[in-house]
């Protein structure tokens, strides 16, 4: 049953339909980025953005990671990291952060998730150095007007 449904011409039509759907700007899903793909190199002398990251500047994107414990309560701002962060209680400044973090500006005040649960964030990608006015936190990549969901 299952295999015959997608056999021959019907399968081709299905994929053609899918392609049309994906190409439609209104219905196109935000591109899923990965922490590994954000930069083409990570050296002592700094990070270099991947071409794709630069190309997606201003576009709607998705990224999966972990919410770091917020720097300020009742804020729209949080830091998304590749792995759950274990922050040294003595040194909780940006001094101890991994370099490849992404700052998230949520569309509404953030209610923290469980920091060991992986989340998916969706919003507009912003590229380039920026200092958060409230916290002084410097970031290279941000996702603005973001929403996020727990990943199952």
């Amino acid at each position, binding site marked *: 049953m299952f295999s015959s449904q997608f056999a021959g011409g019907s399968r081709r039509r299905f994929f053609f339909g899918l392609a049309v759907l994906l190409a439609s700007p209104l219905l196109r899903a935000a591109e899923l980025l990965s922490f590994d793909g954000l930069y083409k190199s990570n050296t002592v002398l700094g990070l270099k953005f991947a071409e794709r990251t630069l190309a997606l500047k201003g576009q709607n994107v998705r990224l999966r990671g972990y919410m770091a414990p917020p720097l300020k309560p009742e804020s729209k701002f949080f830091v998304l990291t590749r792995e759950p962060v*274990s922050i040294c209680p003595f040194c909780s400044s940006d*001094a101890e952060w991994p370099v490849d973090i992404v700052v998230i500006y949520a569309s509404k005040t953030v209610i923290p998730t469980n920091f060991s649960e992986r989340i998916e964030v969706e919003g507009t990608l912003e590229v380039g150095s920026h200092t958060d006015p409230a916290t002084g936190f410097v970031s290279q990549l941000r996702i603005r007007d973001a929403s996020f969901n727990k990943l199952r």
Partner: protein
Amino acid sequence: MRFARLPVAAALLAAVCLPAAAQTLYPINRAEILAGSRFDLKVEFPGPVDAASVKLTLNGQDYHKLLGKSASLIPDETGKGASSLILRDVTLTKPGQYSVEASDGTNTRKVVWNVYATPAKPVAKNVILFIGDGFSVAHRTAARILSQGIEDGKLKGKLAMDELPAMALLSTQGTDSIITDSANAAHAYTTGHKSCVNALGVYCSRAANSLDHPKVETLGELAKRNGLAVGAVTNSEIEDATPAAMVAHTRRRSDFNDIVKMFYDTKIDVIMGGGSPNFLPKSTPGSKRTDEVDYIEQFKGAGYAFTTTKAEMAAAADDKKTTRLLGLYNTGNIDGALDLKFLKKGSVSKFPDQPDVVEEMKAAIKILSRNKKGFVLMVESARIDKYSHSMDAERAIYDTIMLDKAVAEAKRWSKANGNNTLILVTADHSHGVSVVGTVNDDAPGSDMRNKIGTYEDAGFPNYPAPNAEGYPEKVDVSKRIRLVFANTPDYYETFRPYLDGENVPAIKNAEGVMVANEKYKDVPGAVFRTGNLPNVGPRGANQGVHTGDDVVLTAGGPGSAAVHGQMENTDLFRVIADALALGKPAATGKK
């Protein structure tokens, strides 16, 4: 009669109330000050004062006469009307006891300082100060067992540090607490003054800005002023508290960007570790600076060779023209010995050519010893502490072995180069660690707890004999050393080394409570352990924390005879100052 009595009563009342309202002085009471060293003098008054009524004397003489400078009055330092008096960058070159009195016209507060001179002639040409961060007795015992082995009830060999002749116990408490962190602990070694948690090169005053607190001179600054070459090498970020203590003056150790500037301003000769992002201008992706200063270019402009890999470091050190080197080998901490040499986890794939602490030290000595007058080098094995925070026993033990390998190299070098180097090996503070026995996978049953061998059942672990470098090449053996942590958050005990990467015992949950990391829940044999440290609030612990046990100082070489018995951590500074004659009255031209 009435009128005559009132002032007496008022004076009596003032005298009784004195302690609550008295001013605070820095340096504090019982401070030991190296003759000729620079420091800031600060008086904090409990309320507003006017300049005319303030009196500050040293041994009964007006301060100006002895210090040769005028203090400035900060009329309202606190925003609540309390005044302070500050006098920056003064020195006392004449040794002896100084009674310092500050009066606001009503209340007087007295503190006593002891200014000490050193012998006029140095007994050591060089000093190498090894700091195993968080390095405690159990780490040392475990490192000895793993790197030497045991036969017929005796160790087959000793650690290089074990064979240094002098030993003392150091107490590590600070001005605020019986527990120190790496900042005020290293500060005690590099200044000879006690301070508070998080502070480097300053007393902890009420100043609002972390950079405005009263300063004391650091070993890096003093040694440079005396014509010595100075180095700091570590496998942490170079801005981290221990290496920063060679140069830094801040109330807040996390002022990494300011600390980079302090390294630059002090121009110590060899600077190696991780932590490159704070050297990069803000606009460079990956930077952690908040300004556009490119410190790598600044250092290069000041004549420093700059290296980012072990190969570059070796080439720069071999070049006889190199007298200054900045080496940054990771964006974060340099990977520890177990990852670097065997497991290849952590950031080894991203930074495949990082030097270890031994290699950094050898390169540093090559460069520093080009200074004919001698050198002071701090060598830190930083991750003994970091892995003890993360309750990763094996990684902490391997980094203790690495510390000892560096000590062995330093001893060899000293012997071949005039035997005039004072070698000091110590920790900055302890961790709650203890060797309790072994874990034997082949013991009966499936319950891991009952595979722990105690007393005679512990027997001996079955690590392979150490390789040529001194490390057992296999850490996940069937009968392992059991090094436990006394002070913990909630966590899952796995009874095994963490082969996939450093342990992360606990994580903050959405409610802000530190909870066991579920990642280890399903490791075969893992059991949940309820922690015994606070799990909420600003000091909620998601890892092990420092303890207040004494640390061991071992020493050899000229000047090491001063190391014995029980000492304050600040006494270590004096051992160095005496050996190098840093406080000889002729060291400064001032009074």
